[in-house]
């Protein structure tokens, strides 16, 4: 117990924990992309650490990096299953907050300069999408803005799922290039 109690003072002897500590930042990025939130990602990385620290260190794997990512995926799925209810509530809350930002009581939410900055950012986001080539733009709007899955987007456009993924990735590439300062 005391061995696990203070990972900072004593180097962990479990190789998986070592790998985790080396790659923590990568795993946070992984979680952030998979679940769409930086704050949740930090939280999941912490949970992953607890999971790794409390597992049986005798069990090893040929590819420990892949194993960590597999456990990371499970941590995320466990959370999604176990807390579907509270997640739904969080989502509902986010929607309300979101709606009121987009809606009329913006003045109460943010000072005038912040609201102006938000409007400016919104204009940039809209213009960047408007400049995408038509097919790429359609795929991006259906998937990212209307929230359709890759499969549904493919069906709506009459193209393959693979092509949708290519369009989305290419769209994100040009949007990033355009919006990057």
């Amino acid at each position: 117990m005391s061995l696990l109690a203070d990972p900072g003072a004593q180097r962990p002897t479990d190789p998986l924990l070592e790998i985790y500590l080396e790659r923590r930042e990568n795993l946070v990025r992984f979680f952030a992309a998979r679940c769409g939130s930086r704050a949740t990602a930090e939280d999941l990385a912490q949970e992953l650490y607890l999971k790794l620290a409390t597992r049986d260190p005798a069990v090893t794997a040929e590819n420990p990096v892949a194993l960590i990512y597999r456990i990371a995926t499970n941590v995320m799925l466990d959370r999604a299953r176990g807390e579907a209810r509270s997640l739904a509530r969080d989502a509902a809350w986010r929607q309300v907050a979101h709606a009121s930002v987009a809606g009329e009581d913006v003045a109460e939410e943010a000072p005038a300069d912040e609201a102006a900055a938000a409007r400016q950012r919104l204009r940039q986001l809209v213009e960047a999408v408007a400049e995408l080539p038509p097919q790429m733009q359609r795929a991006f709007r259906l998937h990212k803005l209307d929230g359709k899955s890759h499969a549904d987007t493919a069906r709506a456009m009459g193209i393959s799922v693979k092509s949708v993924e290519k369009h989305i990735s290419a769209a994100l590439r040009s949007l990033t290039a355009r919006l990057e300062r």
Partner: protein
Amino acid sequence: MIRSWRYDDDARRADAAAWVARLEAGDLGDAEATAFDAWLSASPANASAFDTALAVSHDYSAAALPVARELARRRAPSASSAVGRRAFVGVGAMAAAAALAVVIAPELTVARTDTYETAKGEHRTVRLADGSVLDLNGGARLTVTLGRGSREVTLDQGQAVFDVAHDARRPFVVAAGDRTVRVVGTQFDVRRLDGKLSVTVARGAVEVRPTDGAEGRSYRLRPGQRLEHREGQTTTTVAAADPAEVLAWRAGRLVYRGQPLSEVVADLNQQFETPIRIEDPALAATPISGVLVLDDQAAVIRRLALLVPVSAVRSGPGVVLRRDGASDR
């Protein structure tokens, strides 16, 4: 030279976008996960390109509705206002429902006081007649009085998140010991345990002032600010705090950044029947940073031991936390 640097930069951006799109689409296989990890670790520039692409993707997710609306408006100016209007219906209906409740409630009912209480470990969501929603953490007790001119809550003890329906004519007031929190419409968390009060604002603004007769000055809190106050004293501190972390208890997690162990134990004692005590004052003051997932008490204490070297010893009806390797070893 410049040309080749440009090329690298562009290829990196393409790879970053491809990884973000791939991760957002679904689970990775072992080979992909290994490749992803290797690509990120290969250069700090890769990691930063990934962060940029992910931030852009998150920006679009967060603004999906207004961006889609604006694009639709540009495309077809005449049809667009209908789309815009429909998109607003959800919001409008919600606001209208709240407003309606506000108009009707005072006429149908005389201002009456309701008491809400939660058992240890119980979470409860209370929807008030004015549309406000209160999330009560375990071991909390509060009373609510919705009157014509004001909405008043008295927090006797515990912690709650207040999501207050906007009503400029009826201020929402939370009395917590010798401090009073006054709001118009916002979301915030109030915690009152062991004579210590903290208020954290997620949205809007609130004002915390001394309750009649108590001493001290008033504070106006913005989103992301946390006020801490010890009852009976005049001093109050205001610091930055992440509201998502403070409100995490609603999803069964407690998040700490440097709070003393005694505060962690006070929170846990609102969740579990078996009381936890700390006898060593130096240990009680030890700062704790980390996340505790609340499931069963033994597991939580085990995880707490990952954050600070303690062990739990049964003692009478409760459990005493000791520093590992102390005294009786």
